[in-house]
């Protein structure tokens, strides 16, 4: 009892001292609480479905940010990792009867291999050339899918897959917890020593090499890590939809990911996640006006990017928080002095 009281008090102190001091942290905490508590308020299958798919795409968008946002390796063919994860998991499930719990991680491993296959020949390319080359890979894979219909199901895809859980709530918590966990891992990676090197490669690769760091190895690592998370999202998608089809490899899938990431804000991880949680449900919300759904979506994205060129989340964060010019610690925008070093904030 005393122990419980001690831990509760400690938890309260951490929450008060670390979470409640910054609006962005409060928003993240609320995001976790709302997502985990949503089924207590509503178990509408449509709402649950939208949140599950949003979670899957949030992992995908964050994985693109890990590669392109952080290291600057512009990948316009991210659907490749998603499709490889989806197809591998589906093939293992249908042909080898491997449970989705085994198939999804194995699909992710296959996507890591795809990351290597794409990464190695693309190491010498940069900017537009890299973007166009990566765009070709999912198209090549789609050609292979159509060329081997007996194995891949051709245009029909592989259907009849098992879901990770047979219950609505089971599926909800698996996907939402997976999203929260995987995105936190990605965020921690970018906050680590490796993440700093990713950042540095994007800013000045020559300077990083001059510092004695093997940038080739780190760029390959970024491709593999991005492939791993995108492959996981692909496997989750295939099993949730119960079908892995050519649509997972379509160019539109690759571009959706880019739009989400740019909309939310590059090199943040949480930016693309927030963008998916805004844009994907928004598309569902505007179903009442089907003729103009795509137009409304495009106008909103254009307006945001016109007035918030660094992305929505960067803009919002800059409005509600200020960075201390001396110690670089973030403070709530209403403060006049830094909460750590008491330096003047204006």
């Amino acid at each position, binding site marked *: 009892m005393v122990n419980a009281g001690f831990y509760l008090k400690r938890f309260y102190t951490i929450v008060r001292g670390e979470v409640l001091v910054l609006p962005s942290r409060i928003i993240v905490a609320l995001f976790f609480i709302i997502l985990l508590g949503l089924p207590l308020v509503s178990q*509408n*299958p*449509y709402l649950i*479905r*939208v949140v599950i*798919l949003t979670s899957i795409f949030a992992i995908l968008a964050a994985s693109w940010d890990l590669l392109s946002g952080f290291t600057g390796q512009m990948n316009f063919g991210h659907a490749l990792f998603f499709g490889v994860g989806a197809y591998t998991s589906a093939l293992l499930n249908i042909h080898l009867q491997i449970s989705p719990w085994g198939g999804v991680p194995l699909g992710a491993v296959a996507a890591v291999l795809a990351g290597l296959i794409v990464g190695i020949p693309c190491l010498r390319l940069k900017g537009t050339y890299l973007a166009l080359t990566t765009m070709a890979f999912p198209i090549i894979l789609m050609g292979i899918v*159509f060329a081997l219909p007996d194995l891949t199901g*051709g*245009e*029909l*895809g592989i*259907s*009849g897959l098992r879901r990770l859980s047979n219950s609505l709530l089971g599926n909800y918590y698996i996907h939402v917890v997976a999203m929260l966990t995987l995105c936190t891992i990605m965020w921690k990676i970018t906050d680590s020593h490796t993440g700093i090197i990713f950042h540095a490669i994007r800013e000045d690769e020559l300077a990083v090499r001059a510092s004695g760091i093997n940038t080739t190895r780190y760029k390959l690592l970024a491709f593999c890590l991005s492939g791993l998370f995108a492959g996981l999202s692909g496997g989750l998608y295939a099993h949730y*939809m*119960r*079908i892995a*089809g*050519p*649509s997972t490899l379509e160019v*539109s899938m690759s571009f959706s990911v880019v739009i989400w990431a740019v909309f939310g804000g590059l090199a943040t991880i949480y930016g693309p996640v927030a963008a998916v949680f805004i844009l994907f449900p928004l*598309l*569902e919300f505007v*179903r009442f006006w*089907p*003729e103009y*759904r795509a137009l409304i979506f495009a106008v909103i994205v254009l307006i945001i990017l016109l007035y918030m060129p660094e992305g929505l989340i960067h803009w919002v964060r800059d409005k509600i928080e200020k960075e201390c010019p001396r110690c670089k610690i973030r403070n709530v925008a209403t403060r006049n002095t830094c909460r750590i070093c008491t330096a003047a904030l204006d």
Partner: protein
Amino acid sequence: MKRVTFGWSFFVTVCLVIFISVPVWGRTIKIGVIGPMNFVQGKGHWNGAIMAADEINAKGGVQVGKEKMKIELVKSDSNEFLSMTDATNAIERLITSDKVDFIVGGFRTESVLAMQDIAMDNKKIFIGCGAAHPEICLRVAKDYNRYKYFFRGTPFHSGYLVRTSFAHMGFVGAILKKELNIPKVKVAIVAEKAVWADPMVEAAQGVIPKMGMDVVGVWRPSDKATDVTAELAAIQKAEPHMIFTMFSASVGITFSRQAGELKIPAIQVGINVEAQKDGFWEATKGMGNYVFTMNTYARGVEVNELTKPFVDTYIKRFGEVPTYTADTYSAILHGLVPNIEAVGSLDADKIVARMENEESNVPSGRIKYEKDAQGRPTHDLTWGPGYLTSLGVQWQDGKLVAVWPNKWVAAPGAPEVTYKGMVPVKIPPWMKK
């Protein structure tokens, strides 16, 4: 006094709101119409469904046991050409938020497979009106208890589409032989570069020689090609009498227009989706004359007594000949409603049990659900004389007229089939020189 006036006003307002809110007819039968609503296929789904609903409601609704219920349609854009995810969200919304009783529509096979699973999870009868792949109905045979709520409404499956195209080729080949006195008809196969056409090209290469004709070559232009003169020059050099086409996209217009301009001495027969549309003549500036394609409906043709009223009303209301996705009309009016009335309830299991054994006339022919070789129900459509055959239509001097089936004998000993309103096929005059 003021308080009494306010109280009465409030009471009257509440009564009015309740009166307006509660429908006079009580419970309605909600039917979800799902399709790519921004495309011609989805528009067909919706147009057919509203025609059926209006017709049923004008007669007082559907007799369900002792209750008369009106039809209420719920439109849902699946956006399935662009996003399969959108399609599955749309059907989930129809079932769980809009609480529809039945669903009609669907087009792209990959999306229909995913949507089918959601409808089956919820035990909702889903009549597919667009996807032609056999796999969708094979699922019914393989796992009847789960997939029995799915029925194919239109078109008959792709295997039968191929057989019909070959029947058209044989029909025109015989006419060419007779009119032009050709000992052996030569055929050029021209198919757009698309996955759906690949097995058809392969099948055509195997079947055409067995039909007593020669294949002079295979050409695969892009499905969105804006210039096919190179292919046409090569085709002209190969001297075919017939060009077997497989076009679903805009290349159908390009090919027909340029072939007409060059007066290639060969008749085009096969599938050309653009040629099924009323705007084809204008789009090809009249150069698409004599193009022959498969179609479901045509002006002035009567497959049975239901065809003409349906086609005429559709043209009057929407200004064009119905496409096959407009068969949501038949799915609702001739599929769902008679079976609901017969069982006297909206119970999906009871309706399925009756519907799968019933035969019914629809504007495009007669519907009978098939069983596979092992006798398992597939809920797929029966093709052939007396059932569904589709039509062969040809552009003749600005008019799209029906030319097939005209004295068609499907197999030795089978009855001859000719629908009312058929006209003879016309051979391009430049072929006779």
